[in-house]
């Protein structure tokens, strides 16, 4: 395993800044949801920011990403602009998917972001296909597939890991294990709770990593990608993490104790990394305040962008049901 990357101030500022952006964005989303600006299901990423930021920090532009319905953090960290992302939450025409998908279905061709997928496990086969395409065209890119531990119970998880391993495809499977599939604790759904061992059963190189530690996640991702780009086939990361908020907005959280949430909050990835960066003299406290301020401004601007957006014309309802051509 490769050692932790040597961090400089800029790198630390970048990691912390991304996590803060995600945190503030999600908090704004929650607020906007209660105000009726955002509808549908809204799944917030608060508490899990280190995973998205750590993974995306290690990717290149050649890589492609397949995500889940809890993908705002993935999207922001991958580089999707906050304004179009917020507009997508609104369902506005200036959203990433023109408002068609909403919170659960963020797509972005420019960053090779192949969608938030709202079918648990549904994205895994896609990532196998993306990896297959890379392989068949001898590309350098990896297909990075993020999913929760709930997907591990799906047949598509096993089919996809098997096929990727069988064909030695460049797919990085990243399981964000936040311990709950909606309200079902992992002990209640999995006979083997040590997820990364399932990947080993398919002869896939697999690591378990602290998902509350952004540096650890980044380091693990870099290591996995190194093997992957060396032609060693698919890699697997299990990021142990926790979501601080409810599964979605209308969730009374009857399935877990408040004390458990409080315990995990002590390991808040943002506070933890911020404190560590200050202690390590990579950042000043003022830097953190600046990052928070910048993120808050960015969120306000994103809201303004979304508010200013138009609704897609109803006349275009049927547009893109069938495509006229394959986008270049």
């Amino acid at each position, binding site marked *: 395993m490769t050692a932790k990357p040597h961090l400089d101030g800029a790198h630390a500022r970048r990691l912390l800044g991304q996590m803060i952006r995600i945190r503030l964005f999600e908090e704004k989303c929650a607020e906007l949801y209660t105000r009726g600006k955002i509808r549908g299901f809204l799944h917030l990423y608060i508490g899990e920011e280190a995973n998205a930021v750590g993974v995306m920090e290690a990717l290149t532009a050649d890589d492609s990403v397949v995500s889940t319905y809890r993908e705002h953090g993935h999207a922001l960290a991958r580089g999707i602009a906050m304004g179009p992302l917020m507009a997508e939450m609104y369902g506005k025409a200036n959203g990433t*998917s023109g*408002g068609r*998908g909403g919170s659960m279905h963020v797509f972005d061709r420019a960053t090779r972001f192949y969608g938030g997928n709202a079918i648990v496990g549904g994205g895994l*086969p*896609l990532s196998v*296909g*993306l990896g297959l395409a890379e392989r068949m065209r001898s590309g350098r890119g990896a297909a990075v597939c993020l999913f929760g531990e709930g997907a591990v119970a799906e047949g*598509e998880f096993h089919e996809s890991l098997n*096929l990727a391993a069988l064909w030695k495809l460049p797919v990085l499977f990243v399981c964000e294990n936040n311990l709950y599939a909606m309200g079902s604790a992992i002990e209640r759904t999995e006979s083997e709770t040590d997820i990364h061992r399932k990947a080993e059963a398919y002869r896939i190189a697999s690591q378990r990593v602290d998902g509350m530690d952004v540096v650890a996640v980044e380091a693990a991702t870099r290591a996995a990608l190194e093997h992957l780009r060396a032609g060693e086939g698919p890699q697997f990361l299990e990021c142990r993490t926790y979501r601080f908020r409810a599964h979605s907005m209308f969730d009374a959280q009857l399935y877990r104790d408040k004390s458990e949430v409080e315990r995990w909050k002590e390991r808040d990835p943002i506070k933890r990394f911020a404190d560590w960066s200050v202690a390590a003299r990579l950042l000043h406290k003022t830097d953190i305040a600046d990052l928070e301020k910048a993120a808050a401004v960015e969120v306000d601007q994103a809201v303004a962008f979304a508010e200013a957006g138009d609704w897609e014309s109803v006349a275009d309802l049927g547009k893109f049901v069938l495509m*006229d051509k394959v986008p270049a």
Partner: protein
Amino acid sequence: MTAAPLKITYREAVKQAIREALARDPRVFLMGEDIGRYGGCYAVTKGLLQEFGEERIRDTPLSESAFVGAGIGAAMAGLRPIVEVMTVNFSLLALDQIVNNAATIPHMSGGQFAVPLVIRMATGAGRQLAAQHSHSLEGWYAHIPGLKILAPATLEDARGMLWSALQDPNPVLIFEHVNLYNMEGELPSDAGAVPIEGAALRRQGRDLSIVTYGASLHKALAAAKQLAGQGIEAEVIDLRCLRPLDDATITASIARTRRALIVDEGWRSGGISAEIGMRIAEQSFYDLDAPPMRLCGAEVPIPYPKHLEDAAIPQIETIISAATSLVRPS
């Protein structure tokens, strides 16, 4: 100028189409269960592995969801996969990928991603394969916006639809009826692509329009021939494409014949025949001189014994009887 016709089977016509696609476009590859070393469950792909190699003729594990989904991903990434699902019944294991991904992503992504994928599968009854290998579920798929559903019934279409499907930016599902694979006929040696939209009038007549597709087309044509002996001239429409449906050809035919008989191996309740019937009611109401009639598969899982299987799906005799009762009641 047409080249000399070749005697050829439907199976061989499909294979020629696949071979041509692989030869013409390096982005095309084939994957599915037992398509390589085994040669295909229905021997359609026999010999292709030797010709094109393992990279492009990919035997897959029995993981319909994974390899269909992989086809979707590869298509989104710019390749042109042909995915073979052994039978329509097995495609249900990939239903999530077909319906939730292939059919939705172009629209849901606001047109950012297309899914130029072709999925071929065998369908239909008639080979005593019983209830888990014999169903006609293409009508189900025709329910889904975002998909194109083809049902080649002739050698020309078996040979020509695939290339057009691969040129289409959308997911195209091709349903090959198992009873057609051995059908033999003549095809010009230079036969090529055919359009993948629009129904075809396979026979003209004045007394009723038989609307059908797939293997039932040939039963309908045989029935029409016998009906002609009784003075009943049936027009026979081969739908070719179940989605989008070619309403214009159907309504134009009914405007001439004023009677419609829909023949469909699929089940009646909620089936494609119901859809066609309703469109006829909507669009041809004032042209109708008799209620539209359906002849569908019996609403049972297709049974194994020959006599029961025969009784469960439309046959020439039942088509004749239905047509006669429509044109000459009492």
